[in-house]
C-alpha cells in the first residue's frame, strides 16, 4: 500500500530539481541557456559603462548594475541561467578588456555562484515580500562570491593580505551589497513590467 508513493517520490524530486533548474525538457534547457547568454551579454554591456562611486575613508560606495544582472538572471530563469550569466559574462568581459583568463576562470565561477544561489528560490515579481526575499538571497549569493574570490586570491593568486582586504573584499562588499540589494528587485520588476506587455508567456516559470 505504501510502496506506490515511495516509488513516486524520487521521481517527483528529480522532476522538481529539473524544474527548478529550468531544464526539464530540451526546449526548456535551450531557453535557460539562451537566458544565460542574454544575461551575460547585458552584464558585459553594463560592465563597460563607467561606474560612479565614492570613497568614504577606506570604504567604496556605489552601484554596479552589472552585478545585479547576474542575480536577476538567476531570479528570472533559475540557477543555471544565473550561473551562466555570471560565469560567461565575467569570462568574456575579462577576455575583451584584457585578453586575460583570470585565475583559470575561478573568479568567473565565483560570480556565477551568485546567480546560481539567487536562482534556487522562486519569486513572485509582483509581491514586495518576494522581492525582499530576492534582495536578501542576492546578498547571500554575493557573500559567497566574495568569500570564494578571497579564497582564490589568497590560495591561487597569493595576493597580499592588504590587497585582498582593501582592493578586493571591501570594494566587492561595499559596492556589491547596495547594488544587488537595491537593483536586483528593481531590474526584476522592470523586466516583469516589460515582459507582461511584450511576451506574457515568458513570465510562466
Amino acid at each position, binding site marked *: 500500500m505504501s510502496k506506490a508513493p515511495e516509488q513516486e517520490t524520487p521521481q517527483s524530486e528529480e522532476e522538481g530539481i529539473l524544474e527548478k533548474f529550468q531544464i526539464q525538457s530540451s526546449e526548456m534547457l535551450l531557453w535557460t541557456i539562451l537566458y544565460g547568454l542574454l544575461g551575460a551579454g547585458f552584464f558585459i554591456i553594463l560592465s563597460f559603462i*563607467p*561606474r*560612479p*562611486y*565614492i*570613497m568614504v*575613508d*577606506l570604504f*567604496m*560606495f*556605489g*552601484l554596479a548594475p552589472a552585478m545585479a544582472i547576474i542575480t536577476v538572471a538567476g531570479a528570472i530563469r533559475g540557477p543555471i541561467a544565473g550561473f551562466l550569466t555570471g560565469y560567461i559574462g*565575467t569570462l568574456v*568581459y*575579462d*577576455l*575583451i*578588456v*584584457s*585578453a*586575460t583568463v*583570470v*585565475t583559470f576562470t575561478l*573568479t568567473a565561477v565565483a560570480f556565477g555562484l551568485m546567480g546560481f544561489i539567487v536562482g534556487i528560490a522562486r519569486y513572485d515579481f509582483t509581491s*514586495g*515580500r518576494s*522581492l*525582499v526575499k530576492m*534582495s536578501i538571497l542576492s546578498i547571500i549569493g554575493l557573500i559567497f562570491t566574495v568569500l570564494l574570490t578571497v579564497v582564490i*586570491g589568497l590560495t591561487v*593568486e*597569493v*595576493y*597580499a*593580505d*592588504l*590587497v585582498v582586504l*582593501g*582592493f*578586493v573584499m571591501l*570594494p566587492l562588499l561595499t559596492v556589491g551589497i*547596495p547594488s544587488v*540589494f*537595491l*537593483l536586483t*528587485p*528593481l531590474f526584476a*520588476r522592470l523586466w516583469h513590467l516589460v515582459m507582461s506587455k511584450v511576451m506574457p508567456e515568458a513570465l510562466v516559470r
Partner: protein
Amino acid sequence: MTISIKNNKFILTVLVLAIVLAGMTFGNIPGSATSTSVQVVDGTTYNFADYPALTHEQIAVFNYLDTLVSQPYGSWDGWYIYPEVVSLVHYQLAFMTYSIARMFEVTNGYRTGYYSDVAYDLIKKMNTTEEVYHNNSIESMEWLRPSIGYANWTEYYYPDPINHDADDVYTGGYREPANIMWTAHYALMELLHERSFNTGEFFDEYNWYMEDWNNSLTTDGLGNATEGGIWECGLIPCQPYEVWTQCNSIPILFTELYDNMFGSNYMPIWDYGLNFMNTVMQDQYGLFVDGYFVQEPMGYMDTHLSTQQPFPGNQLDAYIDDGRPYVSAYGVAWSMLFLEYTQENETIHDYPIFLDVYGKDISGDKMYIIDSYNNPSGFGTYDILANLYTVALALQRGDLTTRDRILNFLWSPYNKVWSPDGRAMHWDSLAVEPFLQSSLGYGYIWATVPVTVKDLAEPRPTEFWDYPYISEANDDVIWVYQAHWDPVSGGFILNIRVDETAELTFSNFASSPIAYSGGVMFGEFVAAEGNYKLTLEPGTYHLVIVEGGM
C-alpha cells in the same frame, strides 16, 4: 494612489535609495576626452586629432602640483612628509619633473611662465641646502639624515673607508661621485629644463656633472685611466657602497640627451656599466636585480642570512635566504623605462617576462605589480612604487591594456577632489597614505600623456626655437589643450578653453597672423613690440593661426 504606494513600498524604497546612492557618486567617473575638429584653411586641412592633446583632468592635476611646488623652497605644505619618508622626497621632485616635462612636449607651443616656473622651482627645491634650509632641505633629508641603509655616508672613501690614505678616493660628498641618486636626478632636471625652455641658465652646472661622471667611469678617481671606473663595474653608487641599475639609468638617459643636444659623444663611458647590468646584475629570469655592493658598508652586520653576503657582489635576498639576489619590481620597471632609449631590444625582450613574473591579476580590468616575487604576500611602499613605474613603462611599450588595469587598481580607492575654483584636482589619499597624494598626481600625468620618457631623449630641432609660440597669457583663466606649430603646413594649432576674458601674446610670427575658427577668419591680432596679441572671450576655441601678409 495611496494603495498603489502601499503595495509597492519596498520597490519604491529601493528606487529612492538607488537614486540617492547613484546621485552622490558621479564625481569619480573618468574625465571626458579633449574635443577636436577638422578645419580647412587656405586649402590645407587641419585635423586637430592628428596633434597631441592634453585633457582637462591632466591640466587640473598639473595645477594641483603647482600648488605644491610654488611655495618657498624650504616649505613642504601638502607634501605630507614624515620621518620615515624623508629619503624619498627628492624622488618626488625628480619624477614630478619627468612627468610634467612630457606635458610641456604635448603643448610645446605654449611657453609662458605657467610651465617653466614650476619646472624651475622644482630644480630649486631639489637643491635646497642644509646651510640655508636646515632640516627642511633636500641635502638634509636625502644625505645627512638618511632613514635607509647604513649611516655615515659622508665619511666614505673607496675602497677603504676606515684606514684611508692617498690611494683612496673620497666618495662621501653630497654633490660628488657616489650620490648618483641625487646628482643624476638634479642634472637631468636641469637638462630637461634646457630642453623644454632653452634658457641656458643651468648649463655650467649640468655640464660639470657630465665631466664628473666621465671622470668617475673612465679613471680610478685619482687621474689614472681605469676600465670600469672608480668602482670597477662601470656604474656609479647611490649610497657610497652600492650601485643600482635604476639610479644609473638616469645619468645614462641624461648622457643620451646631452650628446643629442650638444653633438658630443660621451655615451661610450657607459658601455662597461651597461654590459655589467645586463650580465652580472641579473636574476634567474634575466631581469635586473636590486643592488650590487661595491664595498662592504661601514658597520655591516650579516647575522640574518645563512648565506654570507659577498663584497663585491649582488645584494642577497633575505626573503628566501638561499643565495639568490635581492629583487625589486620598482627598480626593474624604472630601469626598463629609462634605458629603453639606449637598449630598446633589452626592454622589449624583458617587458613581457617582467609582467609574467611580477604581475598579479585581480580581474579583467584590474591588476597590480608586486615588488618581489620572493615575497608575494607583502604589499607596501615599494609595491606602490612598482605600480607607479609600470604604468609609465606600459604606456611607453604601447601596452595600454596593462596601463589601464593598473590605473584602475591603484587610483580607484581615492576620491577626486577639485579645488573650489575648479582649477585644480587631486586624488585624496589622506585616509590611506598621505605621502602618496602627490605621487598619484604626477603618476597619473605620466601614465596618460601621449609622450614617453624615451621621447624626451631626443632634443627639439634647432629651428623649433624660431617657431611661433605663446609667450605670455592670462594663465590662470585658460586651459590649453593643444598648442602646436605645424612646420609642414605652416599653421599654429590652438585648442583652448577660456574661463574669463584672456589675452594671449604670440611671438616669432614673421608677419601679422590670422586666426581661423571653423575655417573662417576669427578675431583680430594687435601688434605689440614685435609680438601679436589676441584677446579671447570665455568659451572653447579650436583655432588655426597662420601667418598673414602685413
